[in-house]
């Protein structure tokens, strides 16, 4: 059946969401898995702190949007999908790239505009790509990648493949037309896509209360397009894993798309150049009390697999890896000037090259 989704009740209002949540609650990851997530979150945070330093040292140009505070979203959700699944995101993409398994060296090299960068120095911070990891970017125009996610989902359905698409975007994207067109198409064609909004409360410096006529974002999302959904605590890595895994199974069964409304918070500004006059230090501190790394740390301490010594060991190991990757990228060469003529066409031609 190509069009519509007869018999499917909107989940915010219906029974299916209960099934989804119940299934999620039964998912129990091992402590070894959770230790891995813990390490990944520490790695992302240290990568971002190093990036902030490098930006201040002017090693990084353009815009640089840090993921500090949101680590649990990428780590928990990407742990729940398979390498064969398709992943696409917006410009705050460092965390997703790392959680998807990309090495730090080509990421730092990309940030520094080096030839060894994951996009050969042509994309920068907002355009990390890795075809080998089914990581489709890294897109900088707000919400413009959401229709691409629909195309990925279309290809999966067309080829009758066992894959899902995981598409991240921010709450600011939900005011764009392309978001609504994309959701309508996904709902209409019943495509296997998890739409995941990382609602950090702000579209750049504008609070959701000043940007959205209806601030309960779930009313503006799935239900309007026949796509069921659920809100998730994005500061909780375990909750992210459970809900995404449950959502992915739902999509794999041919039920269509799922919408996850993930509440999270970024500790740093929108980008490196943000003076953050729109919020108070107290507000930031309040969210930091629920820090995603701290929360998983507590779970693992309670399980008896993490203590001060191990925490220090993880941090030391990660710090060493981050510094090594940064130093190597910093020493790498810039692209050749002639490289501007490559990666544009399959058969290069340009009247002005000569």
């Amino acid at each position, binding site marked *: 059946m*190509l069009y519509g989704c007869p018999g499917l009740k909107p989940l915010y209002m219906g029974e299916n969401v209960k099934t989804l949540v119940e299934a999620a609650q039964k998912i129990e990851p091992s402590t070894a898995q959770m230790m891995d997530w813990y390490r990944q979150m520490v790695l992302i945070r240290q990568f971002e702190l190093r990036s902030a330093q490098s930006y201040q040292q002017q090693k990084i140009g353009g815009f640089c949007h840090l993921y500090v505070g949101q680590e649990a979203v990428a780590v928990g959700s990407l742990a729940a999908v398979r390498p064969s699944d398709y992943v696409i995101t917006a410009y705050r993409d460092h965390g997703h790239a790392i959680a998807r398994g990309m090495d730090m060296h080509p990421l730092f090299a990309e940030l520094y505009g080096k030839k060894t960068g994951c996009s050969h120095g*042509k994309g920068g911070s907002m355009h990390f*790509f890795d075809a080998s990891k089914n990581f489709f970017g890294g897109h900088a125009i707000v919400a413009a*990648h959401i229709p691409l996610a629909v*195309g990925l989902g*279309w290809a999966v359905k067309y080829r009758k493949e066992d894959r899902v698409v995981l598409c991240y975007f921010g709450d600011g994207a939900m005011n764009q037309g392309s978001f609504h067109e994309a959701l309508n198409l996904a709902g209409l064609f019943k495509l296997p896509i998890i739409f995941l909004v990382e609602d950090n409360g702000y579209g750049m410096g504008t609070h959701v209360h000043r940007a959205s006529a209806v601030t309960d974002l779930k009313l503006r999302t799935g239900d309007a397009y026949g796509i069921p959904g659920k809100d998730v605590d994005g500061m909780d890595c375990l909750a992210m894993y459970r809900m995404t895994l449950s959502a992915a199974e739902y999509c794999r069964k041919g039920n269509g798309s799922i919408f996850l409304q993930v509440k999270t918070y970024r500790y740093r500004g929108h980008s490196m150049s943000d003076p953050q006059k729109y919020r108070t230090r107290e507000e930031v501190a309040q969210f930091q009390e629920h820090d995603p790394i701290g929360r998983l740390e507590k779970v693992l301490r309670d399980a008896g697999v993490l203590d001060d010594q191990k925490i220090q060991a993880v941090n030391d190991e990660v710090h060493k890896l981050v510094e090594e990757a940064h130093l190597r990228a910093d020493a790498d060469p810039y692209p050749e000037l002639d490289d501007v003529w490559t990666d544009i066409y399959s058969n290069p031609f340009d009247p002005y090259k000569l």
Partner: protein
Amino acid sequence: MPVIQLREALNQAMCEEMQRDPDVFLIGEEVAEYDGAYKVSQGMLAKFGPMRVVDAPISECGFAGLGIGAAMVGMRPIVEFMTFSFSLVAFDQMVNNAPKVRHMSGGQFKIPIVFRGISGPGQQLAATHSWTVDALYTHVPGLKVVIPSTPYDAKGLLKTAIRDDDPVIFLENEAMYGVRGEVPEEEYTIPFGKADIKREGTDCTVVAWGHTCQTALAAAEKLQQEHGINVEVLDPRTLRPLDMDSIIASVRKTGYCVTVEEGYPTCGIGSEIAYQLQEKCFDDLDNSVTRVAALDVPMPYSKPLLNHVVPGVDRVAEEIKKTIYFQG
């Protein structure tokens, strides 16, 4: 050789490529159950089914983006715009995602997609529906722009476009869908970047493409009959890449050049050709290049006004005479 309409030639190209390659599909408004707003996709739904001939809602940004996303994983979508005037609703997808994903990913993803549909003033559709988008899209590195003027070219170029690994803007014209011409039954394709001399002549080179190629040919006939002026009409067939070598060779022969387009003169295709001619064969020109284009105003509705704005046979003929200093 069978004589068919240009719309049938396009239909044949799409059907043959879809039979050849299961990754090719057609998506657009009214392409399936309605059989195409201009009947280009007539019968295709019955032939290929609803997964391969897909009716999209009126949602250009959405389905243009859908095509680009599908192309990222190796599918070969044909996205039909009912008119390219509506592609402007999807302009970000057209000029950012389609041509730049390859570049920004360091060449990791190719985007083999064709966007096709009508471009040009049409029949009294007023300003918003009458865009000639040639120059808009030719401006963008990463896109290829194709514009056929005969059924033969339409079929061969569309087959090449579908097989091409880059995003192709394929421009058609409402007034030309019914144009008839010879199209061979056997398989053929036409390479991009190769101009075609539609009429050989010695007195003046007229560069014209798409719909204006017909206007230029009619003007050439008129001048031949009325004054014995022998005009060469050169159709570049693709605007990016642009076959400047052939244009220069023709100008070296005739010494004069007139460009004819339905788009606007300011920063138009004619301006680009004129620039390149003065750069590359200045000494071969016996006069400055004449740029015939739409008047630089929004397209009016009223028929006499529209006919005044769009270059017609008489205006083209007059401009050719002026360019070659004809004293008649």
